[in-house]
């Protein structure tokens, strides 16, 4: 009987001592349970999905098995890798441009109140316009080419980055500024050594949000403005023969890659130079 084991582990959880990677099954915080919980939930989801498709006798909507063979088919044709690279290429360009323009712009607008006065209404009007609404304009300006989705990704990510940077500068602690002034920094030094560094944790948070939006937008842009990429894969599979197994396969890949991108950006938050900015919110 592991009755005692259960009692001990309940007590441990309630006193919230640091987690140990125990392998005993009786411990609800053990490594086994921490893997079983998410995997079990995912398995349950896939089972319900498969059952629902079978019970509804749907001809078009795929079961998880159909999706898996769809992914394998795409791999064999060499399309999956090609489309993923195409999508990532566009996101990289649009997003990099947005960081290179959004961060310096945000620093300047956050610091110079008069420039902020001038630019803020424009930013606030452009910001709520969905990047999707820009698709016709992008096609008009750039035609069916990589430039159109890159432009849309840039638009989608530049606003979150700029706005997060402005807010970070405006809410910066006065004591850092005074200390910097006291040591006689030039304007350039002040921006590089103090303002930028003090705002970096919030800038990285803005970058994380922007990358999530960029990944949402690339899919939408590729459905209309180009003929490659994961977004194109989805719309093409639907239009050319109602291949919903490939549609869902594309969706699964988008979800997985989005997850990986977010995990990568999160690594930035672990550097010593910015970790102070997240203290208290998470460990």
């Amino acid at each position, binding site marked *: 009987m592991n009755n005692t084991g259960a009692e001990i582990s309940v007590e441990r959880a309630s006193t919230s001592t640091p987690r140990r990677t125990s392998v005993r099954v009786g411990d609800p915080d053990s490594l086994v349970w921490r893997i079983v919980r998410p995997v079990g939930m995912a398995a349950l989801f896939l089972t319900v999905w498969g059952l629902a498709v079978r019970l509804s006798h749907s001809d078009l909507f795929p079961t998880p098995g159909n999706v898996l063979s769809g992914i394998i088919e795409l791999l064999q044709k060499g399309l999956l890798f090609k489309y993923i690279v195409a999508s990532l290429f566009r996101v990289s360009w649009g997003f990099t441009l947005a960081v290179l323009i959004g961060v310096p712009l945000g620093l300047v607008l956050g610091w110079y109140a008069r420039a902020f006065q001038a630019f803020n209404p424009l930013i606030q009007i452009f910001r709520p316009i969905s990047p999707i609404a820009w698709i016709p304009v992008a096609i008009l300006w750039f035609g069916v080419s990589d430039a159109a989705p890159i432009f849309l990704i840039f638009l989608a990510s530049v606003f979150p980055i700029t706005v997060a940077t402005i807010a970070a500068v405006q809410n910066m602690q006065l*004591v850092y500024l005074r200390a910097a002034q006291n*040591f006689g920094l030039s304007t350039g030094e002040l921006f590089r050594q103090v303002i930028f560094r003090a705002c970096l944790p919030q800038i990285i948070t803005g970058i994380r949000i922007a990358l999530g939006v960029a990944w949402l937008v690339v899919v939408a842009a590729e459905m209309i403005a180009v003929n490659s990429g994961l977004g194109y894969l989805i719309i093409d599979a639907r239009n050319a023969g109602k291949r919903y197994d490939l549609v869902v396969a594309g969706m699964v890949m988008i979800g997985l890659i989005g997850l990986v991108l977010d995990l990568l950006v999160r690594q930035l938050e672990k550097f010593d130079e910015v970790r102070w900015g997240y203290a208290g919110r998470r460990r």
Partner: protein
Amino acid sequence: MNQPAVSIRNVSMSFPGKRSGEQIDVLEKVNAEVAHGEFVCLVGPSGCGKSTLLNIVAGFIDATFGEVLVEREPVRGPDPRRIFVFQENGVFPWLNVRENVGFGLRKQQQTERDRVIARYIEMVSLTGFENAYPHELSGGMRQRVEIARALAADPDIIYMDEPFGALDFLTRLKMRADLVRIWQSEKKTILFVTHDIEEAVQLADRVLVMSPRPATIQEVVDVDLPRPRHLDSPGYLEKRDRIFRVMGMSLRVGETATA
């Protein structure tokens, strides 16, 4: 007396109040001087404007009337020759201890820089923590970093705004002893703001006692006691009690103030 290091002349300060036309007078014709190498404490009830006065002296804010002279030159803004030590969190959290202490040495050569940094890190007893970041240190250690950063810049004057206010009692005692030791070896002029009368008497050559708002210098108490000071000596207790009386405080806990 020689030329003073700092001369505060008729400084008055008013802030606009919450309602329009309302005006809050914080400082009223404050006059004071600090001599070269002197350790002066500014004490007063909380909210009396002693931090405001120090910020004016340091050049962070402008007085409504009057002026502050440092070495006979009017103060126009902050200056690296006069370093301000803040109450808390004045160190840069994105720099480690070594980088913080070296912040005021940007223009010096690498070898000289390293030498100065090592010297002041040792002086504030932080050897071994050179690569630690402020959020990994205790509050007392962070204040030591800030004091080392101020000293490393080799200023003539150090302004301190309740630098030990956020620390616990025992840490505060230790920091005061260390500060006096450092002040004696470095021969800096220090103007130190505190609401803690005991702290002022333990540290200062002279204590400037401020009145409640609108504040002015109510009395100047010379603390001509030898160092190290004994906190139970009659001389110490006499100075302390005198300041308590000037500030209208009773020495018996539980009794209402007499003024």
